[in-house]
Protein backbone atom coordinates (compact mmCIF):
# COMPACT_ATOMS: atom_id res chain seq x y z
CA UNK A 1 0.00 0.00 0.00
CA UNK A 2 1.06 3.57 -0.62
CA UNK A 3 0.68 6.55 1.67
CA UNK A 4 1.46 10.03 0.35
CA UNK A 5 2.02 12.84 2.80
CA UNK A 6 2.28 16.43 1.60
CA UNK A 7 2.50 19.79 3.33
CA UNK A 8 0.84 21.96 0.67
CA UNK A 9 1.77 25.22 2.39
CA UNK A 10 -1.76 26.72 2.48
CA UNK A 11 -2.04 26.69 -1.30
CA UNK A 12 -4.80 25.21 -3.41
CA UNK A 13 -2.95 22.34 -5.04
CA UNK A 14 -5.97 20.11 -5.57
CA UNK A 15 -5.13 19.46 -9.22
CA UNK A 16 -1.59 18.39 -8.36
CA UNK A 17 -2.92 16.25 -5.53
CA UNK A 18 -5.17 14.45 -8.03
CA UNK A 19 -2.25 14.00 -10.42
CA UNK A 20 -0.14 12.48 -7.62
CA UNK A 21 -3.01 10.21 -6.57
CA UNK A 22 -3.38 8.96 -10.14
CA UNK A 23 0.31 8.61 -10.92
CA UNK A 24 1.23 6.83 -7.69
CA UNK A 25 -2.01 4.93 -7.27
CA UNK A 26 -1.91 6.06 -3.63
CA UNK A 27 -4.21 4.29 -1.20
CA UNK A 28 -4.06 7.11 1.24
CA UNK A 29 -3.30 10.80 0.87
CA UNK A 30 -2.59 13.03 3.84
CA UNK A 31 -2.47 16.77 3.32
CA UNK A 32 -1.07 19.11 5.90
CA UNK A 33 -1.70 22.88 5.98
CA UNK A 34 -4.37 22.61 3.31
CA UNK A 35 -6.43 25.78 2.98
CA UNK A 36 -8.99 24.06 0.77
CA UNK A 37 -11.92 22.50 2.65
CA UNK A 38 -11.61 18.73 2.58
CA UNK A 39 -14.98 18.21 0.87
CA UNK A 40 -13.76 20.17 -2.18
CA UNK A 41 -10.54 18.17 -2.47
CA UNK A 42 -12.54 14.99 -1.91
CA UNK A 43 -14.97 15.86 -4.68
CA UNK A 44 -12.08 16.47 -7.06
CA UNK A 45 -10.38 13.20 -6.11
CA UNK A 46 -13.65 11.31 -6.57
CA UNK A 47 -14.27 12.87 -9.98
CA UNK A 48 -10.76 12.80 -11.37
CA UNK A 49 -9.15 9.79 -9.74
CA UNK A 50 -11.52 7.36 -8.11
CA UNK A 51 -15.06 7.55 -6.73
CA UNK A 52 -13.89 5.29 -3.91
CA UNK A 53 -12.09 8.09 -2.04
CA UNK A 54 -13.58 9.10 1.30
CA UNK A 55 -12.58 11.20 4.30
CA UNK A 56 -12.34 9.23 7.54
CA UNK A 57 -13.90 11.08 10.45
CA UNK A 58 -11.59 12.95 12.78
CA UNK A 59 -11.57 16.01 15.00
CA UNK A 60 -8.18 17.27 13.80
CA UNK A 61 -9.20 17.91 10.23
CA UNK A 62 -7.90 21.44 10.20
CA UNK A 63 -4.34 20.20 10.61
CA UNK A 64 -4.46 16.92 8.69
CA UNK A 65 -6.81 16.08 5.88
CA UNK A 66 -6.91 12.39 5.02
CA UNK A 67 -8.30 10.94 1.83
CA UNK A 68 -8.58 7.21 1.85
CA UNK A 69 -9.35 4.96 -1.10
CA UNK A 70 -10.28 1.76 0.71
CA UNK A 71 -12.62 1.51 3.72
CA UNK A 72 -10.70 -1.63 4.73
CA UNK A 73 -7.79 0.60 5.72
CA UNK A 74 -10.05 2.11 8.42
CA UNK A 75 -8.08 5.31 9.26
CA UNK A 76 -10.46 6.20 12.09
CA UNK A 77 -8.90 8.67 14.48
CA UNK A 78 -8.20 6.81 17.70
CA UNK A 79 -6.39 9.63 19.43
CA UNK A 80 -6.43 13.36 18.95
CA UNK A 81 -3.41 14.93 20.56
CA UNK A 82 -1.14 17.95 20.69
CA UNK A 83 -0.38 18.43 16.98
CA UNK A 84 -0.72 14.72 16.34
CA UNK A 85 -3.57 12.59 15.14
CA UNK A 86 -3.32 8.84 15.56
CA UNK A 87 -5.32 6.65 13.19
CA UNK A 88 -6.15 3.01 13.20
CA UNK A 89 -4.55 1.60 10.04
CA UNK A 90 -5.40 -1.88 8.89
CA UNK A 91 -2.94 -3.40 6.48
CA UNK A 92 -4.38 -6.62 5.11
CA UNK A 93 -6.58 -6.69 8.17
CA UNK A 94 -3.70 -6.32 10.61
CA UNK A 95 -4.03 -3.52 13.11
CA UNK A 96 -1.40 -0.79 13.20
CA UNK A 97 -1.33 2.83 14.24
CA UNK A 98 -0.51 5.67 11.90
CA UNK A 99 0.49 8.83 13.76
CA UNK A 100 0.31 12.02 11.71
CA UNK A 101 2.64 14.65 13.05
CA UNK A 102 3.05 18.36 12.51
CA UNK A 103 6.00 19.63 14.53
CA UNK A 104 6.26 23.16 15.90
CA UNK A 105 7.81 25.47 13.32
CA UNK A 106 11.44 26.46 13.09
CA UNK A 107 10.72 30.18 12.78
CA UNK A 108 8.97 30.51 16.13
CA UNK A 109 10.43 27.66 18.16
CA UNK A 110 14.12 27.12 18.92
CA UNK A 111 15.97 23.81 18.89
CA UNK A 112 15.22 23.06 22.55
CA UNK A 113 11.52 23.73 22.12
CA UNK A 114 11.36 21.46 19.11
CA UNK A 115 13.23 18.78 21.02
CA UNK A 116 10.77 19.20 23.85
CA UNK A 117 7.94 18.78 21.34
CA UNK A 118 9.47 15.50 20.13
CA UNK A 119 9.55 14.27 23.72
CA UNK A 120 5.95 15.27 24.26
CA UNK A 121 4.94 13.31 21.14
CA UNK A 122 6.83 10.31 22.50
CA UNK A 123 4.96 10.64 25.82
CA UNK A 124 1.61 10.80 24.02
CA UNK A 125 2.48 7.81 21.87
CA UNK A 126 3.37 5.90 25.01
CA UNK A 127 -0.16 6.53 26.22
CA UNK A 128 -1.69 5.47 22.89
CA UNK A 129 0.44 2.32 22.81
CA UNK A 130 -0.76 1.34 26.26
CA UNK A 131 -4.36 2.17 25.47
CA UNK A 132 -4.36 0.06 22.30
CA UNK A 133 -1.86 -2.52 23.54
CA UNK A 134 0.13 -2.16 20.36
CA UNK A 135 3.50 -0.76 19.41
CA UNK A 136 2.95 -1.21 15.68
CA UNK A 137 3.36 2.47 14.93
CA UNK A 138 4.21 4.39 11.80
CA UNK A 139 4.75 8.13 12.04
CA UNK A 140 4.47 10.45 9.08
CA UNK A 141 4.49 14.18 8.83
CA UNK A 142 6.29 17.48 8.80
CA UNK A 143 8.32 17.10 11.98
CA UNK A 144 10.07 20.46 11.51
CA UNK A 145 13.22 18.61 12.49
CA UNK A 146 15.91 16.88 10.46
CA UNK A 147 16.61 13.17 10.99
CA UNK A 148 19.81 14.17 12.83
CA UNK A 149 18.12 16.61 15.24
CA UNK A 150 18.22 15.46 18.86
CA UNK A 151 14.47 15.20 19.24
CA UNK A 152 14.35 12.67 16.41
CA UNK A 153 16.91 10.33 17.90
CA UNK A 154 16.96 10.83 21.68
CA UNK A 155 15.83 7.71 23.53
CA UNK A 156 13.14 9.72 25.31
CA UNK A 157 12.31 11.47 22.04
CA UNK A 158 11.43 9.63 18.87
CA UNK A 159 14.38 7.23 19.10
CA UNK A 160 14.61 6.93 15.31
CA UNK A 161 17.74 5.24 13.97
CA UNK A 162 19.64 5.62 10.73
CA UNK A 163 19.43 2.05 9.43
CA UNK A 164 17.00 -0.82 9.66
CA UNK A 165 19.67 -2.95 11.31
CA UNK A 166 19.99 -0.37 14.11
CA UNK A 167 16.29 -0.70 14.89
CA UNK A 168 16.09 -4.50 14.75
CA UNK A 169 17.18 -4.78 18.39
CA UNK A 170 13.69 -3.56 19.30
CA UNK A 171 14.44 -1.37 22.28
CA UNK A 172 17.16 0.83 23.70
CA UNK A 173 17.76 1.03 27.44
CA UNK A 174 18.29 4.47 28.92
CA UNK A 175 18.21 5.35 32.63
CA UNK A 176 16.64 1.99 33.52
CA UNK A 177 13.85 2.34 31.01
CA UNK A 178 13.36 0.58 27.68
CA UNK A 179 12.42 2.69 24.69
CA UNK A 180 11.02 1.28 21.43
CA UNK A 181 13.36 1.83 18.50
CA UNK A 182 12.20 3.34 15.24
CA UNK A 183 13.73 3.22 11.79
CA UNK A 184 14.05 6.49 9.91
CA UNK A 185 14.57 5.71 6.21
CA UNK A 186 14.83 9.42 5.38
CA UNK A 187 18.51 9.36 6.43
CA UNK A 188 19.23 7.57 3.16
CA UNK A 189 18.11 10.56 1.11
CA UNK A 190 20.27 13.27 2.66
CA UNK A 191 22.86 14.99 0.48
CA UNK A 192 24.12 14.58 -3.06
CA UNK A 193 24.97 10.91 -3.14
CA UNK A 194 21.39 9.71 -2.95
CA UNK A 195 18.77 9.36 -5.61
CA UNK A 196 16.50 12.39 -6.00
CA UNK A 197 16.53 15.68 -4.09
CA UNK A 198 18.68 16.07 -0.98
CA UNK A 199 15.72 16.83 1.26
CA UNK A 200 12.07 17.84 1.20
CA UNK A 201 12.48 21.58 1.63
CA UNK A 202 15.09 24.08 0.51
CA UNK A 203 15.87 27.17 2.59
CA UNK A 204 19.08 29.10 3.13
CA UNK A 205 17.69 31.64 5.61
CA UNK A 206 18.26 31.43 9.37
CA UNK A 207 15.76 28.57 9.34
CA UNK A 208 17.73 26.50 6.87
CA UNK A 209 21.43 26.40 7.71
CA UNK A 210 21.98 23.30 5.56
CA UNK A 211 20.25 24.53 2.41
CA UNK A 212 18.19 21.36 2.07
CA UNK A 213 16.36 19.99 5.10
CA UNK A 214 14.48 16.74 5.53
CA UNK A 215 11.58 18.04 7.60
CA UNK A 216 8.98 15.70 6.07
CA UNK A 217 9.64 12.19 7.21
CA UNK A 218 8.21 8.72 7.70
CA UNK A 219 9.50 6.59 10.56
CA UNK A 220 8.54 3.06 11.52
CA UNK A 221 8.57 1.23 14.80
CA UNK A 222 10.72 -1.90 14.96
CA UNK A 223 7.56 -4.00 15.14
CA UNK A 224 6.44 -3.00 11.61
CA UNK A 225 9.86 -3.11 9.95
CA UNK A 226 8.90 -6.22 8.02
CA UNK A 227 6.18 -4.22 6.25
CA UNK A 228 8.58 -1.59 4.97
CA UNK A 229 8.95 -1.63 1.21
CA UNK A 230 10.40 1.81 0.56
CA UNK A 231 10.06 5.55 0.80
CA UNK A 232 10.35 8.19 -1.91
CA UNK A 233 10.51 11.94 -2.11
CA UNK A 234 8.17 12.78 -4.97
CA UNK A 235 9.37 15.35 -7.50
CA UNK A 236 6.54 15.06 -9.99
CA UNK A 237 2.77 15.12 -9.93
CA UNK A 238 1.95 13.15 -13.06
CA UNK A 239 3.35 15.20 -15.92
CA UNK A 240 3.97 18.25 -13.70
CA UNK A 241 7.31 18.84 -12.06
CA UNK A 242 7.26 19.89 -8.40
CA UNK A 243 10.76 21.34 -8.80
CA UNK A 244 11.85 24.68 -10.19
CA UNK A 245 14.64 25.25 -12.73
CA UNK A 246 17.28 24.87 -10.03
CA UNK A 247 15.96 21.51 -8.91
CA UNK A 248 14.45 22.91 -5.70
CA UNK A 249 10.80 22.71 -4.56
CA UNK A 250 8.75 24.99 -6.81
CA UNK A 251 7.03 27.10 -4.18
CA UNK A 252 5.40 29.29 -6.85
CA UNK A 253 3.49 26.63 -8.74
CA UNK A 254 3.44 23.93 -6.06
CA UNK A 255 4.56 23.84 -2.40
CA UNK A 256 7.83 24.69 -0.66
CA UNK A 257 7.67 21.11 0.68
CA UNK A 258 8.02 18.01 -1.49
CA UNK A 259 5.62 15.13 -0.86
CA UNK A 260 6.84 11.90 0.71
CA UNK A 261 5.47 8.52 -0.30
CA UNK A 262 5.73 5.51 1.99
CA UNK A 263 5.27 2.06 0.52
CA UNK A 264 4.26 -0.81 2.77
CA UNK A 265 3.94 -4.49 1.99
CA UNK A 266 0.58 -6.13 2.47
CA UNK A 267 2.28 -9.09 4.07
CA UNK A 268 5.36 -8.98 6.30
CA UNK A 269 8.64 -9.90 4.69
CA UNK A 270 10.14 -12.59 6.94
Amino acid at each position, binding site marked *: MRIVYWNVNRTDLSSLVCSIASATNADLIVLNENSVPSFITLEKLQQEVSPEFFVP*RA*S*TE*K*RFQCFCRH*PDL*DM*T*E*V*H*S*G*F*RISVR*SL*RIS*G*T*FSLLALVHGVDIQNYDT*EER*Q*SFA*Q*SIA*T*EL*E*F*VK*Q*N*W*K*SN*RIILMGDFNMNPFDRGMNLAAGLNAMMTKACAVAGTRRHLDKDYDLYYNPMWSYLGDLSEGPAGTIYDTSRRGPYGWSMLDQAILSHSVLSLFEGVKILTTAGANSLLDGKGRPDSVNASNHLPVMLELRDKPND
Partner: protein
Amino acid sequence: MTNYWPEGIDLTDKQSPLEILRDAQAEWESSSGGVLELILQEAESQAGYDMIIIHARHTASNRTASLFSVVSRKENPYPTRLQPKENELPNFFKKSHKTSNLNSLTAINSVIRQLNEEKWVNNEWVVDTPGELREKLEKIFNLGDIKSEILNLISTDVAQNDVDSGTREDVKDASDSDSPPSDEKAELG
Protein backbone atom coordinates in the same frame (compact mmCIF):
# COMPACT_ATOMS: atom_id res chain seq x y z
CA MET B 1 -8.10 43.92 63.62
CA THR B 2 -4.98 42.47 62.01
CA ASN B 3 -4.94 39.45 59.78
CA TYR B 4 -1.51 37.95 59.29
CA TRP B 5 -2.75 34.60 58.07
CA PRO B 6 -2.07 34.08 54.33
CA GLU B 7 -5.27 34.31 52.37
CA GLY B 8 -6.30 31.08 50.70
CA ILE B 9 -4.30 28.80 53.03
CA ASP B 10 -6.50 26.21 54.69
CA LEU B 11 -4.56 23.72 56.80
CA THR B 12 -7.24 21.10 56.37
CA ASP B 13 -6.97 21.29 52.57
CA LYS B 14 -3.67 19.71 51.55
CA GLN B 15 -4.74 17.86 48.40
CA SER B 16 -2.02 17.47 45.79
CA PRO B 17 -2.79 18.13 42.10
CA LEU B 18 -2.92 14.37 41.52
CA GLU B 19 -5.45 13.88 44.32
CA ILE B 20 -7.61 16.70 42.99
CA LEU B 21 -7.44 15.26 39.49
CA ARG B 22 -8.50 11.87 40.87
CA ASP B 23 -11.58 13.58 42.31
CA ALA B 24 -12.26 15.01 38.84
CA GLN B 25 -11.79 11.52 37.41
CA ALA B 26 -14.41 10.09 39.79
CA GLU B 27 -16.82 12.91 38.98
CA TRP B 28 -16.46 12.30 35.25
CA GLU B 29 -17.16 8.62 35.74
CA SER B 30 -20.41 9.31 37.56
CA SER B 31 -21.52 12.36 35.55
CA SER B 32 -21.06 10.62 32.20
CA GLY B 33 -22.57 7.38 33.42
CA GLY B 34 -19.37 5.62 32.40
CA VAL B 35 -19.54 6.85 28.80
CA LEU B 36 -16.45 8.99 29.20
CA GLU B 37 -13.44 8.44 31.34
CA LEU B 38 -10.72 10.82 32.44
CA ILE B 39 -7.25 9.28 32.25
CA LEU B 40 -4.27 10.67 34.11
CA GLN B 41 -0.90 9.95 32.57
CA GLU B 42 2.02 10.70 34.84
CA ALA B 43 5.11 11.85 32.96
CA GLU B 44 8.11 14.13 33.27
CA SER B 45 8.58 17.32 31.31
CA GLN B 46 11.81 17.91 29.41
CA ALA B 47 12.87 20.36 32.12
CA GLY B 48 12.49 17.57 34.68
CA TYR B 49 9.20 18.77 36.21
CA ASP B 50 6.41 16.42 37.23
CA MET B 51 3.71 16.42 34.61
CA ILE B 52 0.26 14.88 34.54
CA ILE B 53 -1.36 14.69 31.11
CA ILE B 54 -5.12 14.57 31.16
CA HIS B 55 -6.82 12.56 28.42
CA ALA B 56 -10.49 11.81 27.83
CA ARG B 57 -11.47 8.32 26.71
CA HIS B 58 -14.70 7.28 25.08
CA THR B 59 -15.27 3.99 26.82
CA ALA B 60 -17.20 2.23 24.06
CA SER B 61 -14.77 2.94 21.23
CA ASN B 62 -11.56 3.32 23.30
CA ARG B 63 -10.80 6.49 21.36
CA THR B 64 -8.98 9.22 23.24
CA ALA B 65 -8.17 12.91 23.10
CA SER B 66 -5.52 14.80 25.02
CA LEU B 67 -7.10 17.69 26.88
CA PHE B 68 -4.42 19.51 28.86
CA SER B 69 -1.51 18.95 31.23
CA VAL B 70 -0.62 19.97 34.76
CA VAL B 71 3.01 20.69 35.62
CA SER B 72 4.71 21.22 38.97
CA ARG B 73 8.18 20.93 40.52
CA LYS B 74 9.27 17.60 41.94
CA GLU B 75 8.19 17.14 45.58
CA ASN B 76 6.64 20.64 45.43
CA PRO B 77 3.05 20.35 44.26
CA TYR B 78 2.46 24.11 44.31
CA PRO B 79 2.64 26.36 42.39
CA THR B 80 1.14 24.29 39.61
CA ARG B 81 0.67 25.28 36.02
CA LEU B 82 -2.19 24.10 33.83
CA GLN B 83 -1.35 23.90 30.15
CA PRO B 84 -4.37 23.99 27.86
CA LYS B 85 -4.13 22.27 24.52
CA GLU B 86 -3.21 24.55 21.67
CA ASN B 87 -6.29 25.98 20.07
CA GLU B 88 -6.53 24.48 16.59
CA LEU B 89 -9.86 25.87 15.52
CA PRO B 90 -9.98 28.47 12.75
CA ASN B 91 -11.07 31.90 14.01
CA PHE B 92 -14.54 31.66 12.51
CA PHE B 93 -15.27 28.69 14.79
CA LYS B 94 -14.17 30.51 17.95
CA LYS B 95 -16.69 32.32 20.11
CA SER B 96 -14.14 35.09 20.55
CA HIS B 97 -10.62 35.74 19.34
CA LYS B 98 -8.08 38.55 19.35
CA THR B 99 -7.69 40.75 16.32
CA SER B 100 -5.69 43.87 15.59
CA ASN B 101 -6.43 46.86 13.43
CA LEU B 102 -2.82 48.06 13.45
CA ASN B 103 -1.25 48.65 10.08
CA SER B 104 2.36 47.57 9.62
CA LEU B 105 3.89 50.97 10.46
CA THR B 106 1.95 51.42 13.68
CA ALA B 107 2.65 47.78 14.48
CA ILE B 108 6.42 48.43 14.21
CA ASN B 109 6.07 51.55 16.38
CA SER B 110 4.09 49.57 18.89
CA VAL B 111 6.75 46.82 19.03
CA ILE B 112 9.53 49.41 19.54
CA ARG B 113 7.51 51.07 22.30
CA GLN B 114 6.96 47.71 23.96
CA LEU B 115 10.68 46.92 23.85
CA ASN B 116 11.29 50.02 25.97
CA GLU B 117 8.66 49.15 28.52
CA GLU B 118 8.81 46.70 31.38
CA LYS B 119 5.65 44.71 31.56
CA TRP B 120 4.00 42.42 34.08
CA VAL B 121 2.86 39.21 32.50
CA ASN B 122 0.00 37.47 34.26
CA ASN B 123 -0.18 33.75 33.79
CA GLU B 124 -3.79 32.92 34.39
CA TRP B 125 -3.08 29.18 34.48
CA VAL B 126 -0.62 29.19 37.41
CA VAL B 127 -2.16 28.33 40.78
CA ASP B 128 -0.75 28.48 44.30
CA THR B 129 -3.23 26.50 46.37
CA PRO B 130 -5.54 23.47 46.10
CA GLY B 131 -8.54 25.81 46.17
CA GLU B 132 -7.22 27.80 43.24
CA LEU B 133 -6.43 24.62 41.34
CA ARG B 134 -10.01 23.39 41.71
CA GLU B 135 -11.28 26.75 40.48
CA LYS B 136 -9.03 26.73 37.40
CA LEU B 137 -9.79 23.10 36.68
CA GLU B 138 -13.48 23.96 36.48
CA LYS B 139 -12.55 26.76 34.10
CA ILE B 140 -10.30 24.64 31.88
CA PHE B 141 -12.90 21.88 31.56
CA ASN B 142 -15.31 24.57 30.35
CA LEU B 143 -13.05 25.93 27.60
CA GLY B 144 -14.67 25.73 24.18
CA ASP B 145 -11.83 23.60 22.77
CA ILE B 146 -12.10 21.04 25.54
CA LYS B 147 -15.85 20.80 25.20
CA SER B 148 -15.47 20.34 21.44
CA GLU B 149 -12.96 17.53 21.93
CA ILE B 150 -15.32 15.80 24.33
CA LEU B 151 -18.32 16.16 22.04
CA ASN B 152 -16.30 14.96 19.05
CA LEU B 153 -15.37 11.82 20.96
CA ILE B 154 -19.02 11.10 21.63
CA SER B 155 -20.53 12.25 18.35
CA THR B 156 -18.49 9.90 16.18
CA ASP B 157 -19.89 7.02 18.18
CA VAL B 158 -22.28 5.73 15.51
CA ALA B 159 -19.72 5.87 12.72
CA GLN B 160 -17.16 4.27 14.98
CA ASN B 161 -19.48 1.40 15.82
CA ASP B 162 -19.96 0.72 12.12
CA VAL B 163 -16.25 0.72 11.45
CA ASP B 164 -15.59 -1.25 14.59
CA SER B 165 -17.66 -4.24 13.61
CA GLY B 166 -14.47 -5.85 12.30
CA THR B 167 -12.56 -4.94 15.42
CA ARG B 168 -15.02 -6.70 17.69
CA GLU B 169 -14.48 -9.93 15.76
CA ASP B 170 -10.75 -9.56 16.25
CA VAL B 171 -11.14 -9.09 19.96
CA LYS B 172 -12.93 -12.41 20.27
CA ASP B 173 -9.80 -14.07 18.91
CA ALA B 174 -7.46 -13.30 21.76
CA SER B 175 -4.70 -15.33 20.18
CA ASP B 176 -4.35 -12.82 17.36
CA SER B 177 -1.79 -10.44 18.79
CA ASP B 178 -2.10 -8.11 15.79
CA SER B 179 -5.63 -7.13 16.71
CA PRO B 180 -6.41 -4.14 18.87
CA PRO B 181 -7.76 -5.38 22.19
CA SER B 182 -10.23 -2.52 22.29
CA ASP B 183 -12.16 -3.82 25.25
CA GLU B 184 -9.05 -4.30 27.36
CA LYS B 185 -7.91 -1.16 29.08
CA ALA B 186 -4.34 -0.37 29.87
CA GLU B 187 -3.58 0.34 33.48
CA LEU B 188 -3.28 4.06 33.39
CA GLY B 189 -4.00 6.40 36.29
